């Protein structure tokens, strides 16, 4: 009878535990990572961890022995000793020695981490509220990377995908076997670019260009995910990083493809688009680039992010509307989208904003108008 209750109890407990365990793996420790530096950091971490554990075992061991043995209820009589210069010296000297032993490998790893010389690939990373911009210096390749997890997943209206909150539209692609230098800065507030598997975390600070580097060995091709690590405003939790390590050959092909895609995009701006085409595209662009602040239904958010539905800008002068989307509003969270989106995307999203949610202006903004406005 007892065991049956016990069984039932344990099955309830197991059930409770396994429900969330369906999508989790109880990860306890720092990832070893894939670079030499990340391995050294992991080793340092484990070394200092075990040092702490052993000090803890000794200190708490003595303490719990006293608690057990030297208690009044067991008739312990207090001795009155309260000083020992020898002991004091000993427990000053021993930790000092341990710390020096610890400082040596820490110093050499740090020197290694600071050596950004002889990089073969230079990638400039710019933090924006709330997306990352990547520029491959000297390669004429650059793009913005936005989170693709939908608002529906975040607000529990749709099931969460495997890489919930850790997926983006454009991966930052890097070659393996080559030293990559990251030049990290920010456009508005401070962000931090962090990919745990390569142990690179560096603050992205407006007015500064910080350097860091990684060398992902050949054979370690794959996707490495990270997040912004410095509070940067309301969507700080929603600007992930996906690093895609490919072989050097694949990387060269990718660069060529990127340049071709950019040219195609520029050519597309000269094409003709119907109002319906622009509306359909505009809805996609809006969901990706605008909805996080202005709301999925254009309703805005709080007092900081104004509503677009029925707003004087989205229903008033078209040129002013184009201007604010292209150039942003300095001193506010409204960014300049001229560099972030293509002409077609810009035309589409402005068209969408002027016709969605009851803003029925009937206006159509064409990519050519955007090109003109950029002149």
């Amino acid at each position, binding site marked *: 009878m007892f065991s049956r209750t016990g069984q039932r109890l344990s099955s309830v407990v197991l059930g409770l535990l396994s429900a*969330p*365990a369906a999508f*989790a*793996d*109880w*990860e306890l420790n720092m*990832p070893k990572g894939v670079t030499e530096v990340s391995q050294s*950091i992991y080793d*340092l971490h484990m070394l*200092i961890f075990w040092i702490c554990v052993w*000090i803890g075992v000794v200190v708490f061991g003595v303490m719990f022995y*006293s*608690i057990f043995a*030297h*208690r*009044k209820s067991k008739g*312990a009589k*207090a001795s009155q*000793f*309260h*000083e020992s210069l020898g*002991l*004091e010296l000993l*427990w*000053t000297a021993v*930790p*000092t020695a341990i*710390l020096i032993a610890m*400082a040596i490998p*820490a110093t050499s*790893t740090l020197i290694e*981490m600071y050596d950004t010389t002889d990089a073969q690939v230079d990638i400039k990373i710019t933090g924006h*509220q709330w997306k990352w911009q990547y520029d491959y210096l000297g390669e004429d390749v650059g793009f913005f990377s936005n989170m693709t997890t939908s608002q529906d*997943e*975040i*607000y*529990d209206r749709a099931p*969460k995908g495997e890489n*919930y*909150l*850790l997926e983006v539209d454009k991966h930052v692609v890097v070659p393996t076997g080559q030293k990559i230098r990251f030049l990290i800065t920010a456009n508005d*507030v401070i962000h*931090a670019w962090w990919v745990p598997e390569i*142990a690179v*975390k560096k603050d992205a*600070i*407006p007015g500064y260009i*910080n350097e860091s580097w990684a060398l992902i060995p050949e054979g370690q091709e794959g996707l490495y995910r990270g*997040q912004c690590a*410095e*509070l940067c*405003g*309301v*969507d*700080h*939790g*929603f600007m992930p990083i996906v690093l895609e390590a490919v072989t050097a050959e694949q990387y060269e092909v990718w660069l060529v493809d990127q340049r071709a895609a950019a040219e195609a995009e520029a050519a597309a701006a000269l094409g003709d688009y119907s109002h319906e085409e622009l509306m359909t595209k505009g809805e996609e662009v809006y969901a990706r680039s605008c909805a996080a602040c202005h709301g999925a239904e254009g309703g805005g958010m*709080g*007092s*900081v992010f104004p509503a677009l539905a029925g707003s004087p800008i989205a229903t008033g002068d078209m040129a002013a509307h184009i201007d604010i989307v292209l150039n942003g509003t300095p001193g506010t969270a409204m960014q300049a989208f001229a560099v972030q989106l293509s002409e077609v995307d810009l035309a589409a999203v402005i068209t969408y904003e002027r016709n969605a949610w009851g803003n029925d202006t009937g206006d159509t903004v064409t990519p050519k108008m955007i090109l003109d406005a950029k002149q």
Partner: protein
Amino acid sequence: MTTTTAHHDDHGHHGPAKGIMRWVLTTNHKDIGTMYLWFAFTMLFIGGTMALIIRTELFQPGMQLIEPEFFNQMTTMHGLIMVFGAIMPAFVGLANWMVPLMVGAPDMALPRMNNWSFWILPFAFGMLLMTLFTEAGAPNFGWTFYAPLSTTYAPSSVTFFIFGVHMMGISSIMGAINIIATILNLRAPGMTLMKMPLFVWTWLITAYLLIAVMPVLAGVVTMMLMDIHFGTSFFDAAGGGDPVLFQHVFWFFGHPEVYIMILPAFGIVSQIIPTFARKPLFGYASMVYATSSIAFLSFIVWAHHMFTVGLPLQTELFFMYATMLIAIPTGVKVFNWVSTMFRGSMTFETPMLFSLAFVVLFTIGGFSGLMLAIAPADFQYHDTYFVVAHFHYVLVPGALFGIIAGVYYWLPKWTGNYYNEKLGKFHFWMSFIGVNVTFFPMHFIGLAGMPRRIPDYALQFADFNAIATVGAFIFGLSQLVFLFLLIKTIRGGEKATDQVWEGAEGLEWTVPSPAPYHTFAEPPHVK
């Protein structure tokens, strides 16, 4: 409210005034100490409620309860209220009550200023809390309020926040001046500096830290105010300013601030452990020197909060080495406490239980601090839940357990009644379990890569977050037990002796329980 009878004392005829004006006008260190403690306790519940809102949102992935914007307001206000509203005023309250009793002084040296420094606080925090109800919302940039998020990109309530910080700063500085003046000038004849109880010593050092760094905090918020309203560019890169300058100035305040929140707790457990081990504190002099060393080192380690901002290598190395050095005096303190227990005759009343938990759990927080000091590893730890786990281990089972231990220890002296020991032990065990269930899993999710200050997280962090939330509710609710116990003890209970605890030593145990409204009108003589 607990010390109205003063018939033990010659000066009983001018006891406290009646009604609310007693508390508004009082210059009595015991009244003011009581007010500080109740204020801190109120703030603990307000800040704790915010913590529970945060933990509820983080119970599972996805946004369920609140919006990310409000989440940021909650993390910011939780930090500010706990640091400036709960922990610091609670220590000042304990100092007000106990420092004069421990050094044999009739009152604090500057009683009117004492009144003022308390009464600023409700207004400062009233103003800060009021911003929650404004259209722009409360400050949302984290309790560390890094520029330019807190300047160019801040909600308009930032101005109230700056004014509030100024007021708290003035209050803290006045409190610190008062404590220094009392300790240096009003000690009973025969009480030399090296005969002072350790609680007095740690507070003396803390008070100097406060005077040194609160003006720095005032400076940094004033620079923010100038940037926001008067067109300067201290922290605005576009105007030639430097966002990293903010962090240097802030942490030059912020790191000593960390020790402001722990040194008095060191003092409290250094009083309690000898009492319940019935054995003198081991290494009194080395405790004083260790505390002073920690205070000194606290001024030269600030940039370990900034290992990832891109400091030059040499700077990084300097701050790593200096930070590692802190482990040495801190270790000395822990070894001394353990040696005090060794071959003692221990009993385990509630204050002792909280002190023992303090020694173990604060040390765990110290270990993770040592890990964070290793600069290369910090690149992985920085701004993750590992850091959240670390500083909550030193602040909750560290500072807060120290305060709670002190309250249990001195409560019979304040109220004249023993608290209910069973209820006290129940409070302890619930708090002990709750605090560990809340904060220990945060080490794991931090190492696994969860950044701090995010309202929603990837799926692999779900389980430990759920556990932490359960722990937070256990911990939060068990503080209601504490509230109940306090009210019960104030209203009555077994009468306390003057000595209160069998092994207690010191001047505060020579006055009657409850301590009369005026004590030591004639200074005692310390041999």
